[in-house]
């Protein structure tokens, strides 16, 4: 029987990675994700792993690129401003088809911003984690238990498709404590014939590279990668539907915000407004199919975020004009209260 323990979201991010076979961590402290690094620094030396606090975020993510290029499972983690610094290497990972895990425990921005929870890095995660034509897989857990599950899934799918993956959490989820059951992942690491792990005179050199000076060769590489992205979009969309069967107002929210939204949705129903919640679990690929399924059934959509309105654009793209799409958000580190969301739902339900 697996034991139930009490863990912080940040600790679960670290422990899940270790359970998934990742014993190489390269990081740099930043609030509110520092416990990920602190936990790794305590656990990894005891199990033969490598914990390395780099001289900068960029150095840490370049180390991740190097480690992951050898075919091992490795990760880095940071919070918003630190992720901006990491993006150069993330683009290189995408450009050289190296699977690796990057964690962002979001805080308020732009700039140094604040240290309270935020979801204002949605655009960055789903559209601009660096220069060039590429995407990374983005998973958004909403509970500490789900953090464990999605870290396992992120490593597995990153290797399956040879793409970097990101866990997009936020300061609230990273800092909160919940009971979790630690279970071993169902899947094990994929075969990696491409890995630069020593040819041992039995095969040709494996070269991990993102530099292609011939335009047509680079185009071919990118086009091949986009074919994999199409397969990901077809197979990897994930979303949770909460009280959606007869819903007239579909509230869309991810991560910790979805828990506030669910509390508001439940209360709205008690007051006679049929609300439901669609919770995207993958942000890229966006669960467009789930939104499409409901766009002709509901009266309207409401995107609730800890930002000025970012994911709402993906909701609009999926709804494609079939229904109104409204937005409610708080930003800068302010967490919306269930009552505020309820007011907005009631206003739309009138």
């Amino acid at each position, binding site marked *: 029987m697996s034991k139930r323990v009490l863990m912080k979201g940040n600790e679960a991010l670290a422990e899940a990675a270790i359970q998934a076979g990742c014993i190489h961590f390269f990081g740099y402290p930043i609030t*509110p994700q520092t416990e990920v690094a602190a936990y790794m620094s305590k656990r990894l030396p005891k199990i033969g792993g490598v914990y390395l606090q780099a001289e900068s975020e960029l150095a840490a993510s370049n180390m991740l690129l190097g480690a992951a290029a050898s075919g091992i499972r490795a990760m880095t983690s940071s919070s918003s401003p630190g992720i901006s610094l990491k993006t150069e290497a993330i683009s290189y990972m995408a450009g050289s088809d190296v699977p690796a895990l990057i964690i962002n425990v979001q805080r308020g921005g732009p700039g140094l911003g604040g240290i309270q929870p935020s979801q204002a890095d949605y655009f960055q995660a789903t559209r601009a984690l660096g220069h060039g034509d590429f995407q990374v897989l983005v998973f958004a857990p909403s509970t500490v238990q789900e953090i464990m599950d999605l870290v396992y899934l992120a490593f597995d799918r990153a290797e399956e498709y040879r793409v970097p993956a990101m866990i997009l959490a936020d300061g609230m989820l990273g800092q909160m404590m919940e009971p979790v059951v630690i279970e071993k992942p169902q899947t094990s690491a994929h075969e990696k014939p491409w890995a630069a792990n020593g040819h041992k005179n039995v095969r040709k050199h494996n070269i991990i590279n993102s530099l292609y000076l011939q335009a047509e060769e680079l185009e071919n590489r990118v086009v091949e990668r986009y074919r994999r992205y199409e397969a990901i979009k077809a197979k990897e969309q994930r979303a949770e539907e909460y009280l959606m069967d007869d819903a007239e107002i579909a509230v869309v929210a991810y991560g910790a915000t979805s828990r506030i939204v669910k509390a508001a949705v439940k209360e709205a129903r008690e007051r006679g407004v049929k609300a439901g919640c669609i919770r995207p679990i993958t942000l890229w690929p966006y669960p467009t199919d789930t939104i499409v399924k409901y766009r002709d059934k509901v009266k309207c959509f409401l995107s609730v975020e800890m930002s000025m309105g970012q994911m709402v654009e993906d909701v609009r793209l999926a709804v494609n004009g079939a229904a109104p799409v409204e937005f409610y958000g708080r930003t800068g580190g302010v967490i919306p209260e269930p009552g505020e969301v309820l007011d907005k739902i009631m206003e739309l339900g009138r």
Partner: protein
Amino acid sequence: MVSEKNIIIVCGHYGSGKTNFSINLALREREKYEKVLLIDMDIVNPYFRSSDYADVLDKKGIDIISPIYAGSTLDIPALSPRIDAAIGGGYQKVIIDAGGDDAGATALGRFSERIERAGYDMLYVANMYRPLVGTPEKGAEVLREIEAASRLKATGIVNNSHLGEYTGADTVRLSSDYIRELSELVGLPVVCTAVKRDIADECGPSVSGLYPIDIHVIPPWKE
């Protein structure tokens, strides 16, 4: 009564429930004493700290000293100069909510001489369900690190073993072996067992030194 001393320091591993216990302790001590002070000395973690619950304490007439930038968006670990005046000052009870682990307890070291002079108990809050202190040996190791960093000696253990909202009477009962072994390892008495008020009756006489507590540290969707 968990301590007769003027100063009660609440220390422990990250996330063992120090802040929630400190708030409960301050409220309980206020029932007996007029002048009670809670010092939030957690300069390590800017989230879920006792300063966030200042209004609960304020309503009961409990003074609080927070790190200077607590509650602002600044991540600057600066302690208030008021702490110097308060230790050994006019308060009948001073409760110090230390930061987690040795890193969090380091801030105590600066005040250790004055704390010793005023007279103190240092309570080590233990939760066996926290994985990094999941065995009595690991719990003892963290306690020794805290003592070294704070230059103070723990005088008792608070059994705060819980699993958040999954906590039932069994959760508490199952911790008795762990706590007994920890107590033997470090040679300190178990001062009390903190349990959520709603399961206190159910725990009943099977749990010794029952200390019913309310949960103040909760996420926004439970408020």
